[in-house]
C-alpha cells in the first residue's frame, strides 16, 4: 500500500457557462518518503493537484486515499484534522499572518490543534533553531527577508511533524541563492523521512528530485524516476 493513492481524479471549474477541466483523470501513487517534483507549463493543473492532495480542494470525481484512509470523502471537520496532523503546506507567497511574530506564526498550527502553551514554546524554539532563525523569533514577517519568511513558513509547515509536505513553488519569490538554501532545507526534511512534493518551474530543482511528474493540460504526460 502506498502512502498516497489517487484514482481517476477529475477537477472541473465552472465559470459561468464554460467549464475548465483542470485535472483529467489523474491516477497516481506516491510512497512514504518520496521526493517528487511536479512540473509543467502555466495552467497545466499543478496547483490544483497539490490543493487536492492537501485537502484544500475536492475533486469532482475520483478517489483519494491517504495512508489507507479514504480522505477525499471525509466531512470538513475530519479533513481539517487530517490537514492538521498529516499534511504540511508551503506557499509561494509565504502566507504568514502579518500581525503575528515569527514564533506565533510557527505556533499557529499547534494552537489550532489545542497543544498546551508550554509544549508549543519548546517546539517553536526547536523549529526556529532548525531553520536557523532562533534570533528572529519576535520579528514580524515584514521585518524579515523573503528567504527568512519562507523558512518561518517551512518551520510552521513542519511543526506538527506531518507525513507529507506540500510546497507550491516555494522558491518562486526568492533569488537563486536563497532559493537553493530553502530547497536544501526542504530536502533535509525529506531525508528525515517526510514525503516531499514540490511544484516548481525551475528545471534545476526538478533535476534534484528523485521523481519528476510532467503535467500538461490537466493530465500527466510523464513520470520519471531517478
Amino acid at each position, binding site marked *: 500500500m502506498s502512502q498516497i493513492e489517487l484514482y481517476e481524479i477529475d477537477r472541473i471549474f465552472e465559470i459561468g457557462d464554460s467549464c475548465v477541466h483542470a485535472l483529467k483523470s489523474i491516477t497516481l501513487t506516491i510512497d512514504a518518503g518520496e521526493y517528487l517534483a511536479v512540473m509543467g507549463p502555466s495552467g497545466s493543473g499543478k496547483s490544483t493537484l497539490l*490543493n487536492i492532495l*492537501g485537502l*484544500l*480542494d475536492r475533486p469532482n470525481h475520483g478517489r483519494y486515499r491517504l495512508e489507507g484512509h479514504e480522505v477525499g470523502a471525509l466531512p*470538513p*471537520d475530519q479533513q*481539517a*484534522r487530517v*490537514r*492538521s*496532523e498529516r*499534511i504540511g*503546506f508551503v*506557499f509561494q*507567497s509565504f*502566507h*504568514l*499572518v*502579518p*500581525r*503575528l511574530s515569527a514564533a506565533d506564526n510557527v505556533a*499557529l*498550527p499547534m*494552537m*489550532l*490543534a*489545542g497543544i*498546551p*502553551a508550554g509544549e508549543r514554546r519548546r517546539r517553536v524554539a526547536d523549529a526556529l533553531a532548525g531553520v536557523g532563525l532562533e534570533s528572529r523569533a519576535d520579528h514580524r514577517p515584514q521585518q524579515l527577508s523573503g528567504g527568512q519568511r519562507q523558512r518561518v513558513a517551512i518551520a*510552521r509547515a513542519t511543526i*506538527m511533524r506531518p507525513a507529507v509536505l506540500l510546497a507550491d513553488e516555494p522558491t518562486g519569490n526568492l533569488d537563486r541563492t536563497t532559493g537553493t538554501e530553502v530547497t536544501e532545507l526542504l530536502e533535509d526534511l525529506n531525508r528525515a523521512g517526510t514525503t516531499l512534493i514540490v511544484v516548481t518551474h525551475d528545471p534545476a530543482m526538478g533535476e534534484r528530485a528523485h521523481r519528476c511528474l510532467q503535467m500538461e493540460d490537466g493530465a500527466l504526460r510523464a513520470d520519471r524516476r531517478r
Partner: protein
Amino acid sequence: MKPFDLVRFALQAATGSPLRTGLMALAMAIGVAAVVVLTALGDGARRYVVNEFNSLGSNLVIVLPGRTETGGIGIGTLSTSTTRDLTLRDAAALLRADGVVRIAPLVVGDAEVSSGGRLRSSFVVGTTSDFARVRRLELAQGRFLPDEGLERASSWAVIGATIRDELFGAKPALGARLRIGDRRFRVIGVLAASGQGLGMNTDELVLVPAASAQAMFDTNSLFRILVEARERDALDRVRSQVEDILMARHDGERDVTLLTQDAVVGTFDRILAALTLAVAGIAAISLAVAGILVMNVMLVAVTQRTGEIGLLKALGAAPGAIRSAFLAEAALLSLAGAAIGLLLGFTGAALLRAVFPELPAYPPSWAVVAGLATSLATGVGFGVLPARRAARLDPVQALARGL
C-alpha cells in the same frame, strides 16, 4: 483551540484593526451608556417621589368624608359627594383604636391674614397639637399649638416661614398679634422653612386650633383626619378599626374613604417604574442598532481577512474553530464596548446627580445587568452570521486572496 488561545487570538485580531474595533466598541458603548443614564434618570425620579411621600409619614391612614372606590389619589377622591360630615367627635373617637398613636383632624380654608397693617391671603389649616408630629414639622421659633383637647377654640397661631417674612419682616413675630378673617390670634410659633416638596408647602401655611378654624369658617365638618398607626405593619388593622368605629358612629353606613400612603406611593411607584422600563426599552433599541453595526463590521472583517481564514484552514483549523474565533472577537468587542459604556453611563449619572442634587439618579442594578446582557447578546447574536460565513469559506479561494 484552547479557550485562552481563542481569546488571545481574537484579541490580537481585534487590535489589529483599531479603527474598525474602535467604531464597533463605540456603538456598543453609546447603547449601554444610554441604558444606564436613562434608567438612572427614570429610577432617580421614582425614588425621589417615593422618598418625598415617605417623608410625609409612611404609616398614615387618611380619612376623607364620603365614599369613593378608588384606592389612590385622583380626581375621584377630590370630588366625593359627602353624605355625612366628619366631626371632631369622630376624630376623638378614633383614638380608642389600639393601633393608633395619634390623630390630627384638618379643617382648611382661605382667609385674609393681617398684622401691623400688612395683609395677605393665606391657606389656613385648623388642626391639633399632634399635627406637628404626624407631619414631622420642624419649628424655627417658639412652639407648636398646645395640647388643649380637640374642642377648645383657643387663639394661638403657628405661621410658615414665608408668612412670617411677609407680615413681620425683620420684626419679631413670636407673641405678635395676628388677624385671621375676623378673629384675633397670637403667634406662638414659626415653622422652619421647608422648601419645595411634594406635600403641602408649609411655608405659606397658617395653623390654628381645629375648633377655632371651624368657628372661623362656620362649619362643623372636617376636611380630613390624619391617623398615625403605631407601625407600618399595623396599617391594615388600624384601617379596619377606623372603618368600624366610624361606621358605628354613622349609623352603620360606610360613608368615609380611607387612603393610605402606601396606596398613593404604590401608584406613583408603579407609574414611574413603568416609565423607567419604557425608557430602558427605548435605550435598548440603540443597543440593537449597535448589534446590527457589529454584524456589518464583522462581515467586512470576514471579507478583509479572507486570506487569513484560508490559511487557518490550510493549517488544520476546523470550521468550528474559525466560527469560535470570530464569535469570540465579536463577544470581546461587545464586552469592551459595554465596559466603556458602563463607565460613560455611571459618569453621566454622577453628572446628573451633581447638577440635580435632589435626584438620586443611580442606575438600578437590573438595568446595568440587562444592558450588559443585551450588548453581549446582540454582539454575539449578530456575530453568528459573519462567523458562519467565515467558517464556510472555500480554503483554496480564500488563500488565493493572499494575506
